[in-house]
């Protein structure tokens, strides 16, 4: 059965970056912020307010869930988050959408402008 991800698309920049940061491994809030800064090469900085506000929304929507328990060596007070399979599907759908936009943009930019 194919799932309909359209109500969740397009993702906001904050949501996209958070889901991307959680795509490869479970992370706690501060690690998500650092990963977002790393992925965007410092161009997009997420504050704790924006981060937890979005995490709460994503958990309500079922895109992200709390990871059962943190790794043994880490501070037990930190909460870890992970992507659900539905969240992964939504992220993939948005990446495909962005990919199509980029292809369109490249095609349009390659075409020489005609004088009107």
């Amino acid at each position, binding site marked *: 059965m194919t799932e*309909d991800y359209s*109500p969740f698309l397009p993702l906001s920049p904050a949501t996209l970056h958070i889901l991307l940061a959680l795509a490869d491994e479970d992370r706690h*809030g*501060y690690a998500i912020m650092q990963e977002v800064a790393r992925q965007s090469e410092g161009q997009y900085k997420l504050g704790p*307010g924006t981060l937890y506000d979005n995490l709460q929304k994503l958990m309500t929507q*079922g895109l992200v869930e709390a990871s059962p328990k943190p790794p043994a060596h880490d501070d037990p007070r930190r909460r870890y988050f992970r992507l659900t399979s539905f969240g992964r599907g939504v992220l993939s759908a948005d990446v495909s959408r962005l990919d199509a936009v980029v292809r369109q943009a490249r095609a349009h930019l390659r075409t020489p402008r005609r004088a009107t």
Partner: protein
Amino acid sequence: MRTCYRCLLWLHPPVFRREYAGEMLWIFDQSQSQGALGLFFDGLGSLARQWVLRSGWWRVVLTLSLAVLQVVLGGFAVLIFGHRHIVEPAQDPSVANIAEFARNSVIAHQPLTVGILMYLTVFVTGGLVIMVLGLTFWVKSFAARRRRVLHKVR
């Protein structure tokens, strides 16, 4: 600045505060060197979003804003269209003439009768009922659509 940030966190809705305030303060301590003011404004944004968007208060705010807008527009309509039947139209229809309209308008020359009060009450109440019903149906359909998507997942 840390105390201000703690106060800001304390102002968040209780559910959010219980879940995330501790971690947010910890992150604030960790990244304070990168700009405490930026983190404070980020917290202000989160505070506004939590109360207005996430807690459902936006429905009340939207309904009240629309109600105020309707009453204001209704008042202007009475001033402008009611005035036309009594006096000549103003030479310069600018905002400055609105006070003149009010002095010469139908309402200004009539005592506030039961009939006018009834008309105003029915007009305002009807408008409010239509707005609340419309908003309720819209929110219900939105929630049902969201539930259908989530149901497919589980």
